[in-house]
């Protein structure tokens, strides 16, 4: 595998996936030192403090919500979904890039993924945790969340399986579970490395327990590899299904602006778009700060940028087709929906979304831009905001004016909406900062496989 990769790199004259001169030792040390040797720095503490502060705000917002109910949010009829669902879709979409990198790129033997899959998977887990909070809080009585699952109960009622909202429960909980399984299975051999490299007896014990006594046996590796590729195989349709089902939450309803067949592919592309933006937002500072440029090379950043460009164009196609179908359908309500998006009270959101998601990212066509980490970081932030606006437009502008003008309304988020949203960003940030310091952020054993020394010569 490694040999083929090297040749491809030479042919295309691209930056390598791993810098030359690396050895089994250097790979192991570079990655484990971030966790085991490196002193706690001010930048890390500062980042964690910001995350923890926002996390505290989340605690406050959720407590107030539990005490007072969803009335503290801006939601009301006709816009009953508001921030909760916008943020749910946004977060879960961000998570999708992690699965794409770990599963789909593995199936396609894209070995460059080996250095970014671990933290991309961590990103998935944390993003799904943030996403999962929103529907739960939105239910009004989150402590009865288990009612969503089919279990024998004294009320004698069962979930309504014809509803996409129930499908969503199954899709998102399966996605969270399988992502955690994939992540943990990938970590076991690296926990064994950590067990041997750690000097602190307590750390050795914890890593030893997490490694399950892994000893690198050839028989174990064979079963391990078989499972790893199968997990990738089942995660691939899973990740596509998750955002498809999320889009069904909208597409199955008859609201103009929601009831359209383009939603599943357009949602999946949008998810990957925002997910890769988040990968870049995390990878660029992490590789710089921890000196991992030899492993997360410009090749990775450029590939991520190209994927963003491609998925961004698919999203653009989605916007175009929504408009085209609304005009072509001849339906008054569909046409009004587009008119309202373009010129209604939320037109600012629509046009900013076009600017952020479609126009600005076109600069990625220029190789110079793709080679600049500053530009990539900036464009990724723009895309993250753009994709959030997309969900805002889909949910709010569709709901606030549907069929009956007498039922039209307006939606304004309250400070508690913002506090909950910012709070989940804090949860995500804090989790990423903690993760970086306790778990090897790059898959060590898969990096060893990329080295020319790993090749068996006949």
């Amino acid at each position, binding site marked *: 595998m490694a040999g083929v990769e090297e040749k491809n790199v030479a042919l295309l004259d691209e930056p390598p996936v791993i810098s030359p001169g690396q050895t089994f030792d250097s790979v*192991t040390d570079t990655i484990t030192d971030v966790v085991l040797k490196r002193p706690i720095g001010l930048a890390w503490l500062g980042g964690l403090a910001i995350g923890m502060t926002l996390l505290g705000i989340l605690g406050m917002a959720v407590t107030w919500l539990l005490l007072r109910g969803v009335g503290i949010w801006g939601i009301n009829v006709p816009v009953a979904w508001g921030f909760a669902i916008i943020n749910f879709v946004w977060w879960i979409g961000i998570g999708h890039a992690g699965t794409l990198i770990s599963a789909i790129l593995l199936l396609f033997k894209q070995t460059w993924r080996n250095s970014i899959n671990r933290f991309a998977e961590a990103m998935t887990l944390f993003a799904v945790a943030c996403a999962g909070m929103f529907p739960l809080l939105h239910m009004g009585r989150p402590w009865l969340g288990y009612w969503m699952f089919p279990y024998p109960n004294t009320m004698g009622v069962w979930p309504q399986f014809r509803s996409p909202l129930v499908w969503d429960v199954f899709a998102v909980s*399966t996605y969270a579970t399988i992502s955690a399984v*994939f992540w943990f299975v990938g970590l*076991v051999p690296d926990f064994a490395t950590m067990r041997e490299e750690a000097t602190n007896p307590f750390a050795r014990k914890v890593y030893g327990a997490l490694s399950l006594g892994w*000893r690198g046996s050839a028989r174990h590796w*064979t079963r391990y590899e078989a499972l790893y590729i199968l997990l990738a195989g089942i995660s691939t*349709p899973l990740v596509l299904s998750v955002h498809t089902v999320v889009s069904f939450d909208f597409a199955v309803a008859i609201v103009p602006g929601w009831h359209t067949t383009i939603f599943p592919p357009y949602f999946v592309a949008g998810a990957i778009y925002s997910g890769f933006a988040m990968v870049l937002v995390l990878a660029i500072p992490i590789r710089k700060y921890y000196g991992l440029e030899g492993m997360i090379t410009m090749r990775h950043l450029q590939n991520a940028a190209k994927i963003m460009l491609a998925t961004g164009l698919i999203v653009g196609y989605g916007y175009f087709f929504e408009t085209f179908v609304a005009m072509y359908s001849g339906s008054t309500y569909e046409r009004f929906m587009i008119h309202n998006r373009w010129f209604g009270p939320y037109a600012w959101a629509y046009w900013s979304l076009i600017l952020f998601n479609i126009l600005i990212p076109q600069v990625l066509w220029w190789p110079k831009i793709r080679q600049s980490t500053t530009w990539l970081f900036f464009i990724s932030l723009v895309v993250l905001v753009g994709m959030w606006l997309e969900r805002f437009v889909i949910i709010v502008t569709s709901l606030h004016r549907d069929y009956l003008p007498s039922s039209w309304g307006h939606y304004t988020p309250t400070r508690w909406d913002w506090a909950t949203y910012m709070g989940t960003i804090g949860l995500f940030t804090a989790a990423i900062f903690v993760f970086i310091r306790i778990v090897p952020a790059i898959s060590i*054993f898969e990096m060893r496989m990329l080295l020319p020394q790993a090749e068996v010569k006949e």
Partner: protein
Amino acid sequence: MSHAVTVPSIYGLLAEFDTPTELVNACKAAYAEGYREMDAYSPFPVEEASEAIGFHKSAVPLIVLVGGILGGLSGFMLQYWINVIAYPLNIGGKPFNSWPAFIVPTFEMTILFAGLSGMFGMFALNGLPRPYHPLFHVARFSKVTRNKFFLCVEAIDPKFDLVGTQEFMERLKPLSISEVPH
């Protein structure tokens, strides 16, 4: 009085190598020599080593398949039972067994069961978690999670002979040979 089974006093002999190529060659030589109860150890998967010691197929794919089928069946049957038998509701005149609507949870349950049974199956087949293993007595073996490759011929192999096997291993030119105590 004679014992039918004699418990070997050591676990086996462990040879250490510097590269995956040497490990694979050693595995091939040991297999040709007639050893079967042995295992190779490496810091990353070396498929050729596993082939060379005669371990070709694992049961993991079968477990994942069976888990997936069971998950799909139970997912569909759960929905059928709820919607047709336990709690039939007429929703817009749709049939009680609205099977197209049940496909999404059925699919998710297939994936869930396949993934979980795969993970638990893989660890169970590997005998993990196993915090204690005789190999951990050998100090040099800690490099197996870093940069060294090992071949262990186990004492339970019928051909194992402390002196003979050691001589055989020396011919493989390893970095070191260690006795692995129990």
